[in-house]
């Protein structure tokens, strides 16, 4: 009798425990759905053609949009990507192909350290080397900060991608008398390409909504600015500024901007997932 009572108690606590874990998992997923739902409901009303294509209006004048912010986001990320990809890929190739011993291990450690550095500190770095000496804010300095944020992700994931290309494929190329350079460019990198693109998409997703380093690099602008040497409007920055403003129509615009940001990040994440599936399929067969 005592035995069965104990067994019963154990069963009850097991079910309770499982229920708690389920609840916690649902709580996390639920939090996302609540936030997403809120942003959609609040933001959908603000998003229309004018919102996507027009300049911001001054306080008190209804309407206006974040067109210049969207453009600025694209420009700044494009420049950041153009800088991050060569440096990141070269470092990844170095780590994957030549990477044993103390120096590469140190580099990997530094890369991991960089991935943990708060974005605001990286923004300060961009400010001290690109803004303070030139005495003006610029989109380029924001691109520089974004590049620093993208690099660790790009380096480590691309290294993994290059490593996951079977050694025999590389040796097959070398055994044919190809140079290391050609074997890498023509055989190894194309095989790793889907995984590298995954890494790139994730890196872009990471900086798309990034705001902190923009405060004192891109700074923001009221105009259609395309010169990277001048201050530029950025969508995330507009969301921040509108959100902390006391005006109801600006706050509504903040929700609309947040909706755009979430959509962009969502699309990038789904794209990354799709590429990842491609990558694993390529290596399976």
């Amino acid at each position, binding site marked *: 009798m005592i035995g069965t009572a104990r067994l019963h108690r154990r069963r009850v606590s097991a079910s309770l425990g499982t229920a708690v874990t389920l609840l916690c998992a649902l709580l996390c997923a639920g939090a996302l759905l609540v936030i997403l739902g809120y942003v959609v409901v609040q933001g959908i009303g603000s998003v229309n053609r004018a919102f996507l294509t027009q300049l911001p209006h001054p306080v008190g004048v209804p309407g206006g949009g974040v067109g210049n912010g969207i453009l600025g986001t694209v420009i700044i990320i494009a420049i950041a990507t153009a800088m991050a990809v060569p440096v990141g890929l070269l470092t990844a190739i170095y780590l994957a192909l030549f990477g*044993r011993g103390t120096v590469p291990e140190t580099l990997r450690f530094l890369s991991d350290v960089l991935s943990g550095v708060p974005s605001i500190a990286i923004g300060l770095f961009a400010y001290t080397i690109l803004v303070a000496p030139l005495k003006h804010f610029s989109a380029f300095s924001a691109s520089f900060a974004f590049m620093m944020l993208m690099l660790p992700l790009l380096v480590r994931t691309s290294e993994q991608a290059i490593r996951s290309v*079977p050694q*025999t*494929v590389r*040796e*097959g*190329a*070398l*055994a*044919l*008398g*190809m*140079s290391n350079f050609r074997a890498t460019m023509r*055989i190894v990198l*194309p*095989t790793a*390409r889907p995984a590298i693109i995954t890494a790139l998409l994730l890196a872009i997703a990471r900086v798309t909504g990034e705001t902190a380093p923009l405060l004192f690099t891109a700074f923001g602008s009221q105009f259609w600015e395309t010169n990277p040497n001048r201050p530029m409007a950025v969508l995330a920055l507009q969301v921040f500024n509108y959100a902390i403003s006391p005006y109801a129509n600006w706050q509504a615009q903040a929700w609309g901007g947040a909706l755009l940001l979430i959509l962009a990040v969502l699309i990038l994440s789904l794209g990354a997932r799709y590429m990842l599936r491609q990558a694993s399929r*390529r290596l399976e*067969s």
Partner: protein
Amino acid sequence: MTAAPPTIAPAGGALATDDLSAYYGTLEAVGNVSIAFRRKSVTALIGPSGCGKTTLLRCLNRLHELTFDACVSGRVLLEDCDIYEWGMDPMAIRRRIGMVFQRPNPFPTLSILDNAVACGGRRLNRRAKIEVAERALRAAALWDEVKDKLTRSPLQLSGGQQQRLCIARAVAAEPEVLLMDEPTASLDPIATAVIEELMARLAERFTIVAVTHNMQQAARVSDVTAFMLADADGTGRLIEVDDTAKLFTKPSDPRTEDYITGRFG
């Protein structure tokens, strides 16, 4: 236990080693091997797992040195020229000594056609490319099976076809020597038979050195067989080289006899 290394060299070698040793860090994986491979014949390297056959093979086209911490001492003579001599270009050497690997390793992102002409076919126009590919694929007995799908991915081919594609890829460079590292290890019996038949045909054009751990295969396909065994330190030694027929019937070393009669695992 380690007597003087045997230096019985079948006459007329296109490729030969002279006192060749290979190392992984401080571990000596292959020790003091001197052997000459007979021109336009198949030489089989046999021996139990871990006896250094594959390492020896990888020394012959300077692939061994790509492994981290690996190095080589001694000489490898290709037409009496030491391929390890300072100033020799490993890329040029690898074009003269082709290699086929244990598992088929076609380049996954290139088409069947581009795989066949991967070595040096980049500057050819499409017509010339197909010409070179056809010659190589015919030599590898694959042309009829793939001629209608040259632009497809090689990953759609069966394992045996992939391996023949890799053979075609190596043959396309018109090498003098063809190294084969257990070319049928990952294939089924039927695909294996096709490759074995192919090896006999290829031997009319190339000097072939093939690693196998299957003694029946060595007996079937090779003209000359070399037996290797690891000594107490784990260093692979060449025990005996002879005509295949003689080595399998009247081995001169008791260790060879133990191995071919199945007294080693």
